[in-house]
């Protein structure tokens, strides 16, 4: 027998209780890793989004519309190069599905502003020519099994078609982006004019424009926003990367919420396992007194208790993290491209720190009590 063997055997003195406690702590760590990986995904930065592109949207909410005339006023601001606009259409391609990214745009300016999008001149010409034409990115084509040349029925709860039938677009082309991450979030595009004629809507969702000097971004944003400041349709202008971060941060609140859940889970675990540990300590008072009698010092016996609780927590953490890693690897192939769910370095560091911290906190009371345990009193209680 080694001291380590001795400690392990002492720890599993009550096999079922310890195993069950460990199992619940393992589950907490599993949950922690899974939730955190999702939270990391949500707060992931889209570093590659350009600062040359700026966006003007309603100050209050992205779903509120802006007057059409704002376009000209923004275009007139010095430093603004090309401008275009888009409206959120919220198209649903398949019954029961969530709405996919679907924008009503001005085709003639849209690709001028988004010069990083790649579309063949053939497809662009076809798009410009036909009022009911639409172009789709690879991701959407693949997801809904679309082909260039077909008619695509699309429904929208924001803009229901007047006759109640789905809207029908002629898919005339496809486009893509050099940026891999962005490529997965490209919208399905169709003529704003078509929407306007059919529904009478004349406002637009937001304006996107390029500027000559990225350094001047905040200056330009300020000029534009102060122009409309005191109107009913006040605006908020940001660079596209800011806008993306802004949007992500709203989802990021979910990340915060998840951290809250994780916190609550661990707090509960803390109470439960601390209870188990103290209980197990009480039961072992006679044994600890015997160890001290045999010559194990106060510190050694305290160390045993601390070691036990650390081992308990780190083992649970290791198993939990292990299972989480396997699970995430298993889920990986079923995620849309661009989504990466993986146990990241910081998550691992967090997990390890929590395990160690938890072990210390839980082990502290038993360790101190064991240290102070007076042999003659403890033997006396028997």
């Amino acid at each position, binding site marked *: *027998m080694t001291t380590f063997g001795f400690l392990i055997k002492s720890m599993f003195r009550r096999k079922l209780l310890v195993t069950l406690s460990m199992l619940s702590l393992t589950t907490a760590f599993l949950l922690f890793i899974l939730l955190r990986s999702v939270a990391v995904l949500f707060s992931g930065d889209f570093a590659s989004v350009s600062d040359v592109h700026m966006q003007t949207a309603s100050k209050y909410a992205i779903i509120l519309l802006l007057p059409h005339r704002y376009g000209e006023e923004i275009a007139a601001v010095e430093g603004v190069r090309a401008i275009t606009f888009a409206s959120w259409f919220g198209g649903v391609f398949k019954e029961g599905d969530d709405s996919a990214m679907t924008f009503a745009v001005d085709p003639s300016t849209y690709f001028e502003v988004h010069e990083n999008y790649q579309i063949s001149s053939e497809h662009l010409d076809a798009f410009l020519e036909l009022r009911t034409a639409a172009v789709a990115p690879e991701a959407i084509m693949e997801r809904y099994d679309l082909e260039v040349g077909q008619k695509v029925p699309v429904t929208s709860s924001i803009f229901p078609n007047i006759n109640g039938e789905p809207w029908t677009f002629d898919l005339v082309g496809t486009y893509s982006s050099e940026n891999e991450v962005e490529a997965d979030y490209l919208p399905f595009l169709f003529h704003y004019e078509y929407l306007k004629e059919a529904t009478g809507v004349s406002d637009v969702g937001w304006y996107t424009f390029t500027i000559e000097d990225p350094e001047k971004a905040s200056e330009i944003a300020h000029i534009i926003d102060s122009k409309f400041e005191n109107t009913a349709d006040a605006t908020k202008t940001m660079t596209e990367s800011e806008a993306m971060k802004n949007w992500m941060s709203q989802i990021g609140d979910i990340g915060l919420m998840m951290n809250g859940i994780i916190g609550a889970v661990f707090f509960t675990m803390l109470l439960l396992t601390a209870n188990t540990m103290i209980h197990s300590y009480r039961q072992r008072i006679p044994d600890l007194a015997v160890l001290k*009698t045999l*010559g194990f010092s*106060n510190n050694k016996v305290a160390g045993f208790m601390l070691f036990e609780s650390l081992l308990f927590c780190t083992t649970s953490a290791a198993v939990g993290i292990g299972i989480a890693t396997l699970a995430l690897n298993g889920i990986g192939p079923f995620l849309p491209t661009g989504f990466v769910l993986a146990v990241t370095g910081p998550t691992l560091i967090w997990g390890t720190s929590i395990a160690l911290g938890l072990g210390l906190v839980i082990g502290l009371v038993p360790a101190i009590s064991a240290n102070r345990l007076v042999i003659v009193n403890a*033997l006396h209680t028997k």
Partner: protein
Amino acid sequence: MALVNLESVWKSYKKGRDRVEVLNDISFRVNSREFVALMGPSGSGKTTMLNLIGGLDRPTSGVVTVNDVVLNSLSSGKLARWRSESIGFVFQFYNLLPVFSARQNVELPLLLTKLSRKQRKKNAALALDIVGLSDRARHTPARLSGGQQQRVAIARAIVADPKILVCDEPTGDLDRSTATEILRLLQILNQEHDKTIIMVTHDPKAAEYAKRTMLLDKGKLVSSLLQSEVGAEVET
């Protein structure tokens, strides 16, 4: 020089506001290789005295010297170390650790030594052999009889080869014939393995195995007689 030497030892415990005087001015010596029985009514302070000799507790005043070491002045860490090297303990209720096998229980004190794993195992087996329990090495305490458990406890007490064994009512929980076996074992350890033994007992028959009997009453040492004198004392 005596192996165990108590000089004007006083011991009192605080109980709330009151002080309970347990030992009053005790002085006595135990020589090397002696086998001493300690008798007296319940509550007279026998266990307390044994605890002082074994370095489990400290006197309120007076000096306890064991094997030339003054125990009063040792830090608790040093005292623990000293216990592991110098004293073997045997209790009435055996106090074995329930999840460990007999051999592992015996090996426990050796975890504090520098012995190799192999050597520890060997010494534990040897100690079990001395107490005649080699064939029960793998049994846990729950699967052993009271007498067998006490043998394991004795093996644990001698495994680190201490000079002194302190035994607190080692036969108190055993029937007569089992008690006799345990006492014979202690006698062998005393006579053949040169262990100095101080044993608390309520049983005059058990005390007969010792060479000397000390009588404690209300914290005072009232007599100390050689075994040959005990009978004479009773007659008069």
